């Protein structure tokens, strides 16, 4: 392998057969370029897809009450389901193992809120502390609602960035009082939210305070649960299942009734999401494998052609004393040398092309940051070299076995 003389012989052969060398090298380089580029674009597609779902808090379950559509346990259908503080406490206690945070969400829409001479209509939500996590609310000023506010039924509010802009302008709102529903509320925090403008036009208050203003009902509206991420994907699915049957049982809803209660979770969304990603990955791998395979076939063809073209030369070499082994090695070494050089050139060309693309395809083709990790590219290149060598080995061995006299008669 490291015989200097043999390498000189190979370099001479390569440099004197430029067309053949170029042809073989081009096939290999093209194969690896196509692989790297296609695989990279596939990865870019996946990147875009994952970005779409990044903004969601994934370990969340929403429980919304509805109206029953089937009679059950003595109740008529079309019964309105409501959750109250007891339900909240029961769920919280029973599923303590799964739950990281639980909060109701009482929504009051279009409430007129004013500060000094400024006023506007905003939605008000009565929530608990863990609601902050569910909405991925980011505090800009002050603080969010805490457990003490809930217990003491404080008349505190946390206002969105646009609420602050409407009511306070440039004034610092913290500690100021706003009017709503004939009462005054103390502003304790200002938040922002990446979910869009409407998300920043909401006012949050402790749900217990909101309940007491609603003439003493303890209706909690929707329930939002954050489950512990460590229970994992399977755990979340199981949790959701148990939760559903627990609520239906507790609220006397027919287990087969689809409308009494609506439970939606990011984990079931996530499952679809992951299924899609998996399919995408399979397609990408398939495309990658396909191009690699096509590359191997291309190389095999070239190798067969190369050896065929050299049959006579190999016959001459045998007649003047080349052993079959030296013939096989010469052909192999040459082909491995060419595939290695052009393979790596193709690989770097492909990587360079991908990085030159950058994010230019994001707008029109949903391809973000196309890339191939270096190991995959190197692996693919090595595969091509190995298969190229193997593809060269078979015709080389056949050529070495040909009786020199047959090769020489092949005029």
């Amino acid at each position, binding site marked *: 392998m490291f015989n200097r*003389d043999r390498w*000189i*012989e190979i370099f*001479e*052969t390569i440099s*004197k*057969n430029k067309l053949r060398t170029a042809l073989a090298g081009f096939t290999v380089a093209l194969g690896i370029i196509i692989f790297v580029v296609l695989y990279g674009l596939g990865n870019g597609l996946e990147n875009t897809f994952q970005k779409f779902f990044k903004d969601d808090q994934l370990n969340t379950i929403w429980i919304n009450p509805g109206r029953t559509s089937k009679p059950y346990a003595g109740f008529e259908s079309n019964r309105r389901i409501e959750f109250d503080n007891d339900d909240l406490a029961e769920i919280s206690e029973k599923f303590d193992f799964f739950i990281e945070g639980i909060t109701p969400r009482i929504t009051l829409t279009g409430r007129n809120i004013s500060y000094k001479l400024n006023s506007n209509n905003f939605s008000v939500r009565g929530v608990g502390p863990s609601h902050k996590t569910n909405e991925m609310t980011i505090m800009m000023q002050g603080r969010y609602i805490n457990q003490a506010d809930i217990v003491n039924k404080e008349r505190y509010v946390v206002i969105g960035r646009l609420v602050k802009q409407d009511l306070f302008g440039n004034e610092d709102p913290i500690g100021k009082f706003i009017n709503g529903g004939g009462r005054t509320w103390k502003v304790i925090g200002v938040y922002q939210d990446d979910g869009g403008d409407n998300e920043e036009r909401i006012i949050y208050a402790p749900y217990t305070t909101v309940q007491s203003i609603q003439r003493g009902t303890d209706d909690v509206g929707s329930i939002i649960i954050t489950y512990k991420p460590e229970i994992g994907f399977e755990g979340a699915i199981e949790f959701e299942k148990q939760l559903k049957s627990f609520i239906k049982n507790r609220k006397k809803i027919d287990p087969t009734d689809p409308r009494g209660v609506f439970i939606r979770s990011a984990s079931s969304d996530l499952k679809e999401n992951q299924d899609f990603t998996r399919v995408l990955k399979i397609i990408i791998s398939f495309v990658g494998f396909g191009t690699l395979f096509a590359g191997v076939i291309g190389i095999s063809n070239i190798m067969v052609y190369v050896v065929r073209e050299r049959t*006579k*030369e190999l*016959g*001459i*070499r*045998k*007649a*003047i*004393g*080349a*052993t*079959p*082994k*030296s013939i096989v090695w010469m052909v192999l070494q040459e082909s491995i040398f060419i595939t290695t050089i052009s393979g790596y050139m193709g690989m770097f060309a492909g990587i360079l092309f991908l990085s030159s693309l950058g994010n230019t395809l994001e707008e029109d083709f949903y391809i973000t940051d196309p890339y191939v990790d270096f190991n995959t590219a190197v692996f693919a290149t090595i595969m091509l070299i190995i298969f190229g060598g193997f593809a060269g080995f078979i015709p080389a061995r056949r050529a*070495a*076995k040909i*009786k*020199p*006299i047959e090769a*020489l008669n092949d*005029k």
Partner: protein
Amino acid sequence: MIRIENLHKSYPMGNRSLHVLKGLNFNVEEGELVAIMGSSGSGKSTLLNILGMLDNYDEGSYTLGDVLIKKMDETKAAKYRNKFLGFVFQSFNLINYKNALENVVLPLYYQGVSRKEREEKALKYLDDVGLKEWANHLPTELSGGQKQRVAIARAMVGEPKVLLADEPTGALDSKTSKEVMDLIQKINKGGKTILLVTHEEDIAQMCSRIVRLKDGVIVEDKKIKQKKAL
């Protein structure tokens, strides 16, 4: 130098086999220039292939120098060919992307001779065939006679015991044929044993002995008075 006893060779042809050589016996002494003659199908090419270790034989024995050449593997055959034999072919069989010098160097490369030494030696043999000035020319830039002389230089460079020539003048005009035969005669005068297959009577007359084959048997084997080529 060459001793052949009761040599048989058949080729399988479907279910039957074609008996090509039917018990040949002959010896070649060192320094002889032997013409092997016969029409096509007489077995002369088969005989030459066996002598050149390019093909195996079925029965009998073939001794080259003091080595019995008997069913050997390809690697061993390649080494013996390299060491004992030089080949000259009708169609020259030069490697067309290598120049004259590189072609002549090749047997030495397979002998493992160092680069410097083999180039010196090859140049000397090119000089012997009168083509030193053409060392750096590709075969496509040479005439037929020149190509054959390069091929002869290549056959000689490994200093073989025997030179085997298969219709060496078959592709040449009569004038060039004579020049090439003159070269072969000179090499023979230098003491080299040469076997030459031909179907041209006048070429055969330039050798010192003629062996005639017909249907796989030797029908005539006689020493003749050698004619000078030029």
